[in-house]
């Protein structure tokens, strides 16, 4: 049995189903409210949901069981009395120490919890970084949307911010450095590109068995780093479009990555829904469309709406679209099936 936590514009849907079959809605929560992200921390079993209430503002909620009442976490806020207010929580990620959990949000902020997500503190070094005035909001805001710990080392962490590029720390978030060498922002004038900081990274992932390797989907380009994010090589050659939002990896294979290319013009699939897979670190890409819609299909798959469970030949992949459809694969992308349809617009999909 697989459980999927699905954040939608109209609440959290928890789906459950057998591998390869259509899933059923098991539980709904936060009915009618935008749930931007939801996940279960495998270490504690605790559930988290990032909810942007139109009334009460953005908040992280947690529950230890789906039947429990959700509790609001404390401390997910900017310093009081300032000029900014927190707009949204984009992602929640388990850290590499007991009780350590990270959350990223808009405006370009990182929160840390050391008590399994009950209380949180703003990472001040990133908040007060001297380059912050040069960070740029994109159409989705100014978002810390990707947080990738280094397996086994809580001191090392990488972040991606739209639009402020890749950030790296090796001292547990006390100091932050850019990791942008090689990323080309073709939406900027050529003269501005070498020193650009307003880089619109859409998603960042780290290879679990080779942590110095990362993959990122850019706003025009797919990149790989083999030096822990210091520099990047474009690997989009062979894809029909270099634009897209999510990227997913097989934890068993550091040469693997999956992307869902969309057109630059309208940010949707070009009539056919095709997942592209590489198993040679981006040298070649293989289309994976068996079971996916191949006609009149113009889907928008957002950055948190594609996720994996398991690994290797048993790798399960799931992605949802703003049209309310979810597709899954239980054979590492070789074939796909319909998981759910007619849900509200999907913002995130995470297997529990």
């Amino acid at each position: 049995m697989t459980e999927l936590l699905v954040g939608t514009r109209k609440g959290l849907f928890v789906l459950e189903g057998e591998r390869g079959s259509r899933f059923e809605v098991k539980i709904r929560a936060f009915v009618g409210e935008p749930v931007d992200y939801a996940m279960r921390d495998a270490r504690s079993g605790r559930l988290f949901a990032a909810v942007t209430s139109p009334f009460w503002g953005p908040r992280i909620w947690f529950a230890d069981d789906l039947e429990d009442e959700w509790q609001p976490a404390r401390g997910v806020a900017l310093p009081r009395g300032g000029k900014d207010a927190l707009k949204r929580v984009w992602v929640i990620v388990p850290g590499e120490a007991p009780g350590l959990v990270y959350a990223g949000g808009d405006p370009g902020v990182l929160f840390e919890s050391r008590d399994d997500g009950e209380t949180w503190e703003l990472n001040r070094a990133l908040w007060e970084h001297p380059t912050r005035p040069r960070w740029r909001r994109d159409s989705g805001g100014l978002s810390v949307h990707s947080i990738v710990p280094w397996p086994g080392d809580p001191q090392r962490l990488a972040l991606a911010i739209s639009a402020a590029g890749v950030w790296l720390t090796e001292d547990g978030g006390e100091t932050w450095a850019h990791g942008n060498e090689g990323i080309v922002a073709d939406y900027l004038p050529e003269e501005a590109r070498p020193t650009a900081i307003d880089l619109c990274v859409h998603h960042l992932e780290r290879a679990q068995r080779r942590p110095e390797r990362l993959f990122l989907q850019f706003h025009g380009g797919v990149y790989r780093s083999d030096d822990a994010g210091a520099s990047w090589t474009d690997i989009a050659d062979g894809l029909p479009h270099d634009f897209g939002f999510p990227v997913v990896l097989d934890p068993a294979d550091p040469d693997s990555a999956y992307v869902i290319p969309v057109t630059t013009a309208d940010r949707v699939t070009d009539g056919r829904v095709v997942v592209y897979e590489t198993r040679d670190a981006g040298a070649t890409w293989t289309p994976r469309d068996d079971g996916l819609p191949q006609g009149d299909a113009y889907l928008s798959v957002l950055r948190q709406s594609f996720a994996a469970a398991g690994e290797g030949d048993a790798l399960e992949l799931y992605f949802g679209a703003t049209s309310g459809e979810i597709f899954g694969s239980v054979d590492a992308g070789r074939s796909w099936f319909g998981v759910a349809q007619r849900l509200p617009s999907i913002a995130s999909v995470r297997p529990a």
Partner: protein
Amino acid sequence: MAIVRLRGQLEKLAGGESELDVEAGTVTELLQQLEQDHSGLEGWILDERGELRRHINVFVNGEPAEPDTAIEDKDKIEILPAISGG
């Protein structure tokens, strides 16, 4: 003292109290005092800038109020989500 009525989530955050007595001269002062008296409410009605959240309405004796609306003794205050949909 003004009488503040809370419902739903705000009532829960205030420890289950549906009516609270608060001393304040204006709506903003009342909301700040409310947060001081009940830390669970911090950030729910006023954001980090101290501004009333956009889709929250405050009523004084049944009339829509602004942040600088004066509060008198025994005024009845309600804090409610705005009409929304879609």
